[in-house]
Each structure stands twice: as C-alpha cells, then as structure tokens.
C-alpha cells in the first residue's frame, strides 16, 4: 500500500479545506495510506516570488526536513509542487539540504500526476452533473507538464459535461504577489479569462490550483456572474454545489 504524506499548502489549509478533504478521500479510494504532519505550513513560494531568498531558504529547509522520510509527498497544488521540485534548487541551500532536495524532489507530486502517472489509477468518482471548464494553471502546465492527467480524471466523472474553453492555456493573471503589486493588471488579465469562461457556457471552472481559482472566483463575484470555481478534486468526489 503506497504511503502518502499529504502536503496541504497554507492557503488551501485556511481557505479551501474542502480541497484537502477531497484529496484525502481520493487518495484513499486509490488505495493509499494517507498521513498528515501538522508541523507543515508553507513551501515558501510567496517569499521566493517576491525575491526574498533568505527567508525562503528557512521554509524550504523546514519542508525538506519534515518530509525527509516520506515515501510520497502529494499536494493538491501544482504551483507549490513546482516550487519544491524546481525552485528549491535555485535557493542556494547548504550542501546537505541541497542533497536532500535532489533526493526528495522525485517523490513530490501534484495529485493528478500521482494518481494517473504514478499509481495508474482512476479512483471511483461521484456524480457532478454540471458544465465544467478546465483552466490550465501555468505552473502545472509549463513547469510540470500537467494537463492530460486532470483531464483524464475529469472525463471519468459521472454526469459531467466538459466545456471547451477558448485560450485554455492563457494565464489567469493571479501570479502570486503580482496580484497585489500589479493589481489592476492582474485583474485585467483575469477579466479576459473570465470572459472566455462565460463564453464557454460553463457553470464551474476548475484547475489544479486554488490560487488561480480564488482569483477567478473573486472576479466573477465582483462582476455578479454565477460562475463557481472549484478544485478538480472536489469535482471528482462529486461535491454538491451549494
């Protein structure tokens, strides 16, 4: 039985616990033993994104120590996984930690790539009788080459209607601290994404990253559009739309 250590990023923990819950459920259905170490907090991406490497190093070191003995580390967030797999190596970690990173990076996965590529399993899904558009979050798409995996999983959901989304690979404009530093620009990019989602006829937009989704949802709410955003894990278990 594969033993999975969950990595639930800080914002998922605090803002979107449903994503975490759905992740646990899916991994169990896929036959995994799931553990969660509450010492975990953050991979350091926000600090790194802002250019603060020293502070990021502390958090990266903490992460690497925490998961040193894990067989698999799985997270429902492509951007956090990309941070760990790609950018921890750019931080100038001390040699021992650098080695630990070389070691560990091959065991850290985003949820869909773990299920589809590593386990080769499509867990049993619930029913989700809604029109769904999939947005390709940039880090997942370009840094981890994740695209086919979430689509396969979504296609296996009962009663789902997957809509074609124009410019699916276009950035939503969140960009981490970019959303704050260049707030109007971030929103303008997001508005175009929202227009495309609207045109697709979808009730729900989904992605590998709750960060993108929270940005899109925030824009939709402000505009008064009935579009809902949900991480694909929640769709897979057939969460009921409120």
């Amino acid at each position, binding site marked *: 039985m594969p033993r999975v250590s969950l990595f*639930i990023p*800080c914002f*998922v*923990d*605090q*803002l979107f*616990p449903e994503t*975490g819950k759905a992740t646990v459920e899916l991994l169990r259905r896929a036959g995994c*033993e*799931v553990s*969660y170490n*509450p*010492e975990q*907090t*953050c991979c*350091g991406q926000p*600090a*790194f*994104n*802002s*250019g*603060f*490497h020293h*502070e*990021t190093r*502390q*958090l990266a070191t*903490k992460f690497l120590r925490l998961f040193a003995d894990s067989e698999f580390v799985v997270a429902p967030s492509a951007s956090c996984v990309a941070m760990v797999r790609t950018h921890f190596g*750019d931080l100038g970690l001390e040699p021992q930690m650098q080695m630990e990173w070389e070691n560990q990076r091959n065991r850290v996965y985003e949820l869909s790539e773990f299920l589809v590529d590593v386990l080769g399993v499509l867990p049993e899904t619930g029913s989700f009788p809604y029109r769904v558009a999939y947005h390709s979050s*940039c*880090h997942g*798409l*370009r*840094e981890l080459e994740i695209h086919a995996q979430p689509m396969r999983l979504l296609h296996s959901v009962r009663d789902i209607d997957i809509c074609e989304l124009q410019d699916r690979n*276009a*950035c939503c*404009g*969140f*960009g*981490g*601290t*970019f*959303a*704050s*530093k260049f*707030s*109007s*620009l*971030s*929103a*303008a*990019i*997001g508005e*175009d994404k929202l227009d495309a989602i609207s045109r697709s006829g979808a009730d729900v937009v989904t992605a590998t990253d709750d960060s993108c989704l*929270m940005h899109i*949802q*925030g*824009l939709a*709410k*402000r505009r008064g559009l009935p579009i809902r955003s949900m991480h694909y894990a929640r769709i897979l278990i057939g969460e009921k739309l409120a």
Partner: protein
Amino acid sequence: MNKHTSPRNLKQSIRSSLKNRSQKPLPSKVNTGRAVHARDLRASEWPDFDQRRSDITQKRQAAIDYLDELHARLRSKWLENGIVVHDALDAAEAREIITGLLRDRGIIEVLKSKSMLSEEIEINSHLEATGISPLETDLGEYIVQLRNEAPSHITMPAMHLFRQDVGKLFAERLGVPYTETPAELTAHARKVLRQRFLSARAGMIGVNFAVAETGHLATVTNEGNGRMVSTLPPLVIALMGWERVTETLQDLGELWQILARSATGQRATSYLSLLQGPAKSSGRPNEVHLVVVDNGRKAIHRNHETREVLRCIRCGACLNVCPVYQQVGGHPYGGTYPGPIGSVLTPLLNNPKEAPDHPFASSLCGACEEICPVSIPLPRLLLMGRKQGVESRPPLSPERVVWSTFQSVMTGRKKYEAATRLARLVQKTLPEKLLPIPGWTDHRDAPQLAAKPFRDWFREEHEEGES
C-alpha cells in the same frame, strides 16, 4: 525625437494604459494573436521542432561562450574585407562615432533600416540635435517616426495601431487622401521613400548576425529597405550588438529560419542580406563602417547567471504570448525593449535601480520561455532580477519586515496556528478585505477563511477513528 517613457515609471505607465483604454478589442491583443497563430503554424511544419530548437540553443550558447575568440576571427575578416570597425563602449560613444562619420563627410541625411540597437543608443534625437536627419524606411518605423513615438514592439513597430490610425496619420502628414487600406498606405510610403533611397548619401543598417567564418554582416528583412540602404549609398553604417555573432554560414541559416518562424510566422523572410564589405574596385558602397556596441553587454556576459540572456535573437515572440504585453502593449515598459525580454534586459542594460519594478511586472506564467526559439529561461531570470532587487535594498525595508514576519510565522506550527486564528477573528470584522494581499479587493471579492481549517478537520477525523 522618439519619445521614450522612463522605465522608472513602469507602474504608473501600466496603470494609465489600463485606465485610458478606448478600444476594445485591443490592438495589442489582436495583432499579437495573429502573430502567434502564424508562428504556431510554421513551428508545426518542423516535425522535429523541439530538437532543432535545442540544437540552435546549444550553438547559440556556444557562440556566446566563445565570443572573444569569434570576435578575433571576425576582426581579421573585417580587415581583409575593408570594413572599418569602431568599438563603442556605451550609447554615448556610439552616437559620437556615428555622428562623426556623417558630419565629417558633410552628410545631412541618413536613411535607416530597422535597428532596435539604434533605438537603444537613441541615435535619432542626437542626430537631429546636430542638424542631421535620420529617416526611417521600415514601414512600421516610418509610421512611428511620423507620430513622434517609440516603436512598441521589437519586430512590429506599429503594433499598437489599427489601420485607421495610420490612415489619419498619412492624410495629415503626407497630405494624401484618407485611406485605411494597408495596401494603399504602403504604396504611399513606397512612393515617398523611393527617390530618397536613390539619392541617399548614407544608409544605416542593423546587423542581425555577424558570421565569423566569412566576416559577412547579415540583415534579416522583408521590405527591401535594408537592401536599399546597404546597396545604393556610398556610405553604409552598420550597427551591431557585441553579442550578435555566429560562427558559420550554416548556423546563420538555422538562426534565420527559426527567427523568421518565431517572429513573423514565415519559413524565410523575403531577404537575408549578406554584406561582406565595401566594393572592391568601383561600385557601391564605397565605405562600410561597423559600430560594435557594448552598452552593458559585456557586464551581462561576465555574470554567469545572466549570460544566457545574450542568446536572444530579437524575434519578439515572447512579447506576443505575454499576458502583460497583450494588455498594455509596449510603451509602458519604457527603455528600448518591451515584454518579457525587456523586463530582463532593461534593468541589466541600465542601472537596475532605474528599473526596479520590471522583474515584478510578470505573473511568471512561462509562456515566454515556452515559445522562445533559443530557450531563454525568462521566468527564472525575472526571479533572479527580483532577488537582486531585494538584495540591493536597505536591510530593513518595509517589505523585508513583511517577509521576515511571514517566515517567522510559517516556521513554527504554533505561531502559524495562532496567526491564522487571529486572522479568522479579524475577518469577522473586515470580511471584505483579504488582508495579506493589498490591492486584492480593488477588483475582486475576497475569499473567506474557512471556519475550520483542514488541519483541524484532519486532526479531529484522525482522533475519532482510524485513518
């Protein structure tokens, strides 16, 4: 004469650009969309595109790594072929050299083929100040020159305009009846410029690549103006960035093809001109003067972390796919080069303190790296720019305090849980605000902190029974 906004004003420029939008659809979205479509079509014609790109990248990096050796070979070829070489340390020196060449020969007008380097050294305003007229002959450059604007794109200078804008401009400035048909507008430009080509005493070209094998100066164009100004006048001034060197003619062939495919979606541009030097006996050009410009490139080269940005072949593809560029166009970036490559280059070519915000004006989506024909890791270079920006600031800047606090909170589970409990309480009173992200709620509703975070749920669920 060309107005450059200062790179320092990036944030304000972006804000005004967003505020002052009159046209939807945006030319910066429509025109770049067409460019990307054409590029994708041509890229897909090479079944081994990724391999070919990888080979070209390696060759380009090798050329960059051996620039000193290649330059030594070039110098001897240039000497052999009669090209007079001037090395310019910086923009000011380049301007002096060029102005001197024209002034000493009593030349009062120089016809220019497109050169982003000539924009970088700001030659036009300098020449005008000394009584020499630079006349742009590339259609896009000609248009922006008439409008007293800087080009807004690396390969498509008038990207920010629709046909109606050009129609109005030509009617006003050329006195021709209003038309908005590109073919008719182009015909006007052709007519105006024809006699100027024939009577020009001096031409200025931008060199895309110098070939070490033979000493040829290669210029990639479509309109024929590059050929005109390097074939007809007695004096040709060629302008070249220090790093624009390739070893062999075969390498040049590969670079030309991938440049054409990436920049304009062509298999090959209408012309690849190869200038070896002045005419050996009679004929034109009588003189070829080459100005090799450093202007910060050697410093970029010496730094191994930044060196790979010198691979850039100035195709402009990264601009076309950039979500930021698509929203605001090229002018807000200031400096010479917009888009992702500009956001990396502007702080490096100027003082980074002159362009502190450029590395941050990106969502790091990676579309630029994905399309780059020479595989420049632009997002990584932007992140490095951010790090350098932070390191050059005073140690106790307000933002540092924020991130130190962040790190401190995140390092300890107890601190993290306490902080988030506090945040939950605060949100009860300020539900609209997403506190850690200033600016969020200007345009978006804030998500709510969940009543029960994941960790609490997991702990409870684990305590209740087996996991």
